[in-house]
C-alpha cells in the first residue's frame, strides 16, 4: 500500500512539474493544482496502512483507528490550496486580458524589450 501510493505521488509530481514547465499559462495552472494534490496525498500516506482499521469515531471495544491527524492536516492544506488556485486563475485571466496571449515566452519577452 505504501509502495503503491508513493509511486502514485511520484507520478503526480512528475506530471505536475512537466505541466509547470509548459509554455502556456493554462497547463501551468493545472500543474500547480496537481502539485498541491500530490503533497496532500503524501500527507495521507503518512497515516500508515489503513487496511483493517476503522474510521476515527470512538466506539467501545475498538482500538485500531486510522490516524485522524493527517486527514485534518489535508483539510487545511486543501482549503489553502483552493484559495491560492482561485487567485491564480484570476491572475492568469487578467494577464490574458491585458496582453491577449497566454504564452509565457511572449508575455515576458515583451516586458524585457519595453524596459
Amino acid at each position, binding site marked *: 500500500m505504501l509502495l503503491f501510493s508513493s509511486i502514485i505521488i511520484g507520478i503526480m509530481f512528475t506530471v505536475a512539474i512537466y505541466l509547470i514547465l509548459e509554455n502556456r499559462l493554462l497547463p*501551468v495552472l493545472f500543474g500547480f493544482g496537481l502539485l498541491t494534490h500530490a503533497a496532500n496525498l*503524501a500527507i495521507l500516506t503518512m497515516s500508515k496502512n489503513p487496511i483493517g482499521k476503522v474510521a476515527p469515531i470512538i466506539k467501545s471495544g475498538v482500538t485500531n483507528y486510522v490516524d485522524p491527524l*493527517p486527514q485534518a492536516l489535508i483539510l487545511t492544506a486543501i482549503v489553502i490550496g483552493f484559495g491560492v488556485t482561485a487567485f491564480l486563475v484570476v491572475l492568469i485571466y*487578467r494577464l490574458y486580458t491585458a496582453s491577449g496571449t497566454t504564452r509565457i515566452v511572449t508575455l515576458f519577452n515583451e516586458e524585457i524589450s519595453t524596459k
Partner: protein
Amino acid sequence: MIHMLQSLIDNIVVLPFFIALVTGLVGIIWRRPCTSRRLFFSISAAIQMVLAWYLIFLTHKVKILFLPLGAWKAPFGISIAIDVFGSLLIGVTTMLSLFAILYLFATTKKDKENFLLLPLIQFMIAGIVLSFSTGDFFNLFVSFEIFLIASYGLLTLKSDEKSIKNTFPYLGVNVIGGTLFVLGASFIYGMFGTLNFADISAQTSNLSQDPKLILIASYLVLVFGIKAGFFPLFYWLPRSYSCLPPPLAALFAGLLTKVGIYAIIRTLTTIFPLGLVSIYSAIGYLSIFTMVIAIIISLSRTNIREILCYNLISHIGFLMASIAIFSPISLTGGIFYMMHHMVVIASLFLISGLIVQLTKTDVLQNAGNVWKTHGFVGLLFLIQALSLAGLPPFSGFWGKFLILREAIRFDQLSLAIAIVLASILTLLSMIRIWFHVFLKKNESLKIGPSPKGFKRSTTVVSILVLFSLAMGVFSNPFINASNKAMTGLLNKTSYENKVLVYEQTLKMIPVDKNGHSKQSSEKKQVSPIHSHPGQQKTKNGHHKNENYQLKSIPNTVSKKEVLDGTSVH
C-alpha cells in the same frame, strides 16, 4: 472578574495576532476610506506594538510564554509558545507595520486609497506574528500561507499589467515553496508521529548523526531558503519587490525574508538537535555566494529600489553566516543583526520613497540635486546607509562585528573574507546612490517645493532612523536581549519542559483513547529531562555568565564547544 483577568493574561500570547486579524476583518466590512478609518487602523497598530513590547518584557521574566490552544495538551493540540527570540521579532514587526501605515497615510490621498490595502497589511502582519509565535509545524505552514496570500493581494492591488506580470513569478515560486513545505511536514509527521516543535525536539535529542535527520533538516533549510531568498533561489525577489510602493516595499523587505531566516534558526536550534555540522557548513557556502554575488549584482543596477533589493539579499547572507558559524556569540550577533536589518532596510525603502517624491524618479541617472535642497533627507539616508554598511557607531556594526569575530575565532576565513568584502561593496553601492541622488548636479531636474505630505512622511522616517541610531549607540540592552534570545534557543530542555510538561490551569483533559496511551508514554520520556540539574541557573541580564546547555553536541564538534564565558565586547 478575577477569573476573566487571569484568562486575559493567559491569552495575551495570541493577542497581537488576534487584534491584527480582527482589525483586518473590520476593515473589510468598513470599506469607505476616511479619516476615522485611518485613525482606527493606526490606533490598532499602536496597540499591537505596545502589546508586543509588553510581551518582550514578559518573556524576559518567564522566558517562554506558552498557551495550548483550546487547552489541548501539548503534543496533540496546537501550541503557541513565544520565547525571547520570537517576542523580539514580534516587537520589531509590529513597530514596522505602525510606521509603514503612518507613512502610507502621509503620502497617499484618501480618495485614492484602495479599501483592501489596510486590511491586507493587517492580515500580513497577523500571519507574520503567528509564524513568530507558533510552536507547531503545521501551524507554521498555515501562518506562512496567511501572510503569503495577503502579500499576493498587496502585490496585485494596483492591478496594472506590470504588477501582475511581476507577481506571477513570485506566486509561482511561493506555491512551489508551500507545496514543498507541506511535503516536509508530512515527512516529519511520518518520521516522528508529531508536528509539535518540543515533541520533535524531545524525540530527536540523541539522533544528531542520523542521516535521515540530516536529510530532512537540509530539506527544510531549502524550503525556508526559498522564502528567505538564498543564493540560487533569489531571482523572484527584486522583480516583485521593486514594483511595490515604498511603504509596502519597506514592509516586504523588512519582514518577509526574515520569516524564512527565523524558520531556519528555529529549525536548527529548537526543533532539531544541535551539532548538525554538515548542514552548517552547507549554509556557510551558500551564505558566501549570497553575500558576494547579490552585492555585485546590486552594483550593476541603476534603479534605487533594485539596488536596495539586492542589498537586502546580500544581507540575508550575513544572517546565514551567523547560523553557519553556530556558536552562541555568533547567534547573538545574528539575532541582533536581524533586528537591526529589519529596521534599517525598511527605513531605507521609505527614504527611497522620499527621494521619489522629490525627484519623481528612482533611476540614478535622472536624479540629483537633493543634498542642496533637502539636506535632511540626505542626512537620514547617510545614517542608514552607513549603518547598513556596518560602520562603528551605527547599529550594523555590532552585529557584523560579533559575526566576524566568531568567524575568525573558528578559522572560517573564507566566511570572514566574504563578510568584509560584502560590507565594503555595500558601502560602495550606497555611495553610488549618495553620489547620484544627493551630490550630483543635474541641470535638467528642478526640485520644486516639498510635495504635500512630505513633511509628515519625513517625520515618520526620522523616528525610525532615530530608533536605529539608538540601537547602535546604546547597543548594550539590545545585545543583552539578543543574547538572552540565543540562550533561550540553545536551552532546548527548558523549551521542551515548558511545552510538554505544562501544568494546565484549566482542568480539561481531552478524552481520546488513542491519545491517552501516547500521553503517558510521553511523560515517561520527558520526566528525566525535567529533573535535569542546573536548568534554572541562568542569571537575569548578565550575559557574561550564561550557562549554555549544548547537551546534544557530539564529540566531533569539539571546536564549537560551549564558550567559557568570554565576554561579548
